[in-house]
């Protein structure tokens, strides 16, 4: 296929992951996966000030840790890590059971956009980053444990860090 032909190729619609993953799990004989479904969107909180004056927080799933920290484990891990936002990018690691880690281990920015965020701070487009980014595993099968154990701790950390906005980067 020539480049011109390729550029004309029609885009496929976004993948519907829920039916594909549900079919795979039931095809393998596992119980039906309980997807989170909200009837209403989360409560709307207006942004208080422009981004260039804001302190931005980063919360990422994807099993990211910094060298020297304990790695995540693969079964319903409801712990989190606080990673200083001035961490050296080469010190960041990724470990996970549910996605292909090849590119994340080659360049962590594909799941933890720390270099882009630091560049935007340096260029004055973001006011500043919070002192820590928070990372977690995701892939936790108990919504109750996420709601009762993990989220309240993360909310507390965000309040203590006096963040204006928080960017969530799931995998």
């Amino acid at each position, binding site marked *: *296929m020539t480049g011109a032909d390729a550029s004309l*190729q029609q885009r*496929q619609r*976004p*993948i519907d*992951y*829920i039916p*594909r993953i549900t079919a*795979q799990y039931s*095809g*393998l004989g596992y119980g039906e996966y309980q*997807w989170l*479904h*909200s*009837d*209403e*969107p*989360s*409560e*709307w*909180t207006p942004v208080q000030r422009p*981004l260039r004056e804001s302190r931005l927080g980063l919360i990422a799933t994807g099993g990211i*840790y910094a*060298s020297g*920290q*304990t*790695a*995540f*484990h*693969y*079964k*319903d891990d*409801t*712990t989190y*890590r*606080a990673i200083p936002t001035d961490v050296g990018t080469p010190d960041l*690691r990724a*470990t996970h*059971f*549910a*996605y*292909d880690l*090849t*590119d994340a*281990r*080659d360049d962590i*920015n*594909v*799941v933890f*956009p720390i*270099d*882009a965020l630091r*560049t*935007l701070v340096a260029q004055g*487009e973001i006011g500043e980053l919070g002192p*820590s980014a928070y990372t977690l595993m995701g892939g936790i099968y108990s919504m109750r444990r996420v709601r009762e*154990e993990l989220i309240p*701790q993360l909310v507390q950390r965000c309040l203590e860090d006096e963040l204006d906005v928080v960017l969530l*980067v*799931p995998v």
Partner: protein
Amino acid sequence: MSSARDITRAAGPARSVYLDFPLGHTSGRPHDPELNLTIMRETLAAFETLTEPGSMLHLNHRWSSTDNWKDKVFAPVERGEVAGDSSPSSGYDDDRVLRHETPQYQTEEDAAAAHAEHEGEDCLVCAGIDY
């Protein structure tokens, strides 16, 4: 940010930004800082431009010149191509990783560094772990 539009829509965040890349690339492409910076600028702009609860901004970047990568995502495996294939007939390979309950380090050096770091004291950054 999201690379799984239907999962994010079902969860219903107040604001979201969708990037049509394969899972494991929520914020960009490896070693492409210019693209990743553009993605981040467009993403953060949504804090100031989205006004309706539940709205999702679609970014226009494309993973490759074709979308053929989508055909193989969570798709049943073609059987009968390999002589003597005696796999079960579900059509799916079980490629899920064992759910270990011990830390899974990327490198041996990380395990040693973590042990050295945590010897004899509680760590304030690996929250929720009992030592």
